C-alpha cells in the first residue's frame, strides 16, 4: 500500500532524535508490549508480514504521531480480536467471558522464549532464480493496495543484481494469507543518481532486497 510507512526519500521529518545511554525500553509498559507481542507470536496465528501490514494500516496521522511501542500496542489491540484471542466485549470490559476459549496448552516460558519462525531454506534447489548477479533489472511499477516490500522510491528504476539471497517467502501473498509463494530474493544495486537525480553523488548507491515478482529485465 502507498502508506506513510513507506518513508524512503521523504522530506520534512526533522532532525534525527539521538539519545545518549538510551534504555532498551523507555517505560515499563513498552517492555510489556514487546513481550506480549512475542508471546502472542508464539501461537503462530499470523505471519510477520501480516504483522507488519497491521502496523501499516494504522491511520496515517496516528502512525506519524505515536511512538514505536504505541504503534505495536494499537495494532495488538486490533489483532487480539481479529485472530480470536479475545472477543470485542472482553477487550472493552477487561474481563474474560465465563465460557470463553482458553489456550490449550497454556503458553509456557519455554514456548515463548524458544519460539522460532518457520523460515524457508534459502538453498531450496527446487525453486530456480529468474535473474542472476550482474544482470540489469528494473523494479516494476507496482502499486498494490495490500502489503508490499517494494519501496515507492525504487519503482520503475533500473539497477543491477548484486547478490542472490536464495529462496524467501514473498511478503505480498504471505501478509494477505495467500501463502508464502516462495521465490528468489536479491540484493539489487541502484545508483543514487538513478533514484534521486543529478544532485546525488555519482559514486553512491542504494542496495534494496527485492523478490523475483518485483523485477523485470531492463
Amino acid at each position, binding site marked *: 500500500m502507498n502508506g506513510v510507512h513507506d518513508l524512503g526519500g521523504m522530506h520534512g521529518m526533522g532532525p534525527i*532524535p539521538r539519545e545518549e545511554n538510551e534504555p532498551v525500553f523507555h517505560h515499563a*509498559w513498552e517492555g510489556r508490549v514487546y*513481550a506480549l507481542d512475542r508471546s502472542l507470536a508464539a501461537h503462530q496465528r499470523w505471519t510477520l508480514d501480516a504483522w507488519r501490514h497491521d502496523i501499516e494500516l494504522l491511520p496515517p496521522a496516528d502512525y506519524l504521531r505515536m511512538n514505536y511501542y504505541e504503534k505495536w500496542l494499537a495494532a495488538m489491540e486490533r489483532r487480539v480480536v481479529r485472530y480470536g484471542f479475545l472477543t470485542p466485549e*472482553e477487550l472493552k470490559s477487561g474481563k474474560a467471558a465465563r465460557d470463553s476459549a482458553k489456550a490449550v496448552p497454556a503458553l509456557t516460558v519455554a514456548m515463548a522464549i524458544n519460539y522460532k519462525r518457520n*523460515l524457508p531454506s534459502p538453498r531450496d534447489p527446487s525453486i530456480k532464480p529468474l535473474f542472476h548477479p550482474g544482470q540489469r533489472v528494473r523494479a516494476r511499477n507496482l502499486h498494490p493496495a495490500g502489503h508490499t516490500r517494494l*519501496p515507492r522510491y525504487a519503482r520503475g528504476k533500473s539497477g543491477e543484481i548484486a547478490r542472490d539471497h536464495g529462496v*524467501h517467502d514473498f511478503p505480498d501473498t504471505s501478509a494477505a494469507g495467500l501463502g508464502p509463494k516462495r521465490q528468489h530474493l536479491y540484493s539489487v544495486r541502484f545508483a543514487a543518481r538513478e533514484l534521486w537525480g543529478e544532485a546525488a553523488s555519482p*559514486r553512491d548507491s*542504494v542496495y534494496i532486497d527485492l523478490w523475483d515478482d518485483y523485477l523485470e529485465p531492463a
Partner: protein
Amino acid sequence: MSAHDHDHEHQAVPSDPALRVKALESLLTEKGYVDPAALDALIDHFETKVGPRNGAKVIARAWVDPAFKQRLLADASAAIAELGLISHQGEHMIALENTPSVHNLVVCTLCSCYPWPLLGLPPVWYKSTAYRSRAVIDPRGVLREFGLELSDDVEVRVWDSTAEVRYIVIPERPAGTESLGEDELAELVTRDSMIGAAKLKGPRR
C-alpha cells in the same frame, strides 16, 4: 517522551498505554495465552543478555582473525553461528566491510528491521521517521548529523533492509590498537559503528 504526564481529564479514550497494556496482559494471562513469567524473561533477555556487545564480539574476532573475517564476509550467518549468536530476527545475516574508500550505512525505510541477536532492539533514532526517510536520499547529510564528514571520493552504499536479511557493518579498526587483545578491541566497538552511522576512535591515552 512524557506525552501522558499532562492532565488526563479531557483526553479521549483510549487512555494511558500503561493501563491498556495492563488490561491486555491480565486478560491474556487469564485465558492462558501468555505467562507473566515468560514476559519477565523476554524483557530480561533484551535488557540484560542481548545487545551491541554481541555484535562487538563478532567485529573484534573479525579484526584479529583474518580467516574468520573471510568467512564472515562470505557467509555471515554461518560465521556468526560459530559464536552461537544466531536467533530470532538474525537468521539471514550479511556483513558489510567499511574501508577508507567504501562506507556502508544500514536502514529500514519501511519499518525497523534490525539484527536483534547482534545489536539488541533498535534505538529510537534508527526507528525514527527522520532517519528512515533521509538515509536513502541524503546519506551524507545524515552522517554529517552524526558528526561524520565523508570526503567526496568515498563511495557510500546504503542498505535498505526490505526483507528478512539483516545487515551488520564491520567498522574500520582504529589506528593505535595493534597491541590490544580481542576483548579490549570489542570494548571499542559501538552500536552506531555497526549500523554505519559512526567511525571508531582508538583507545584513550
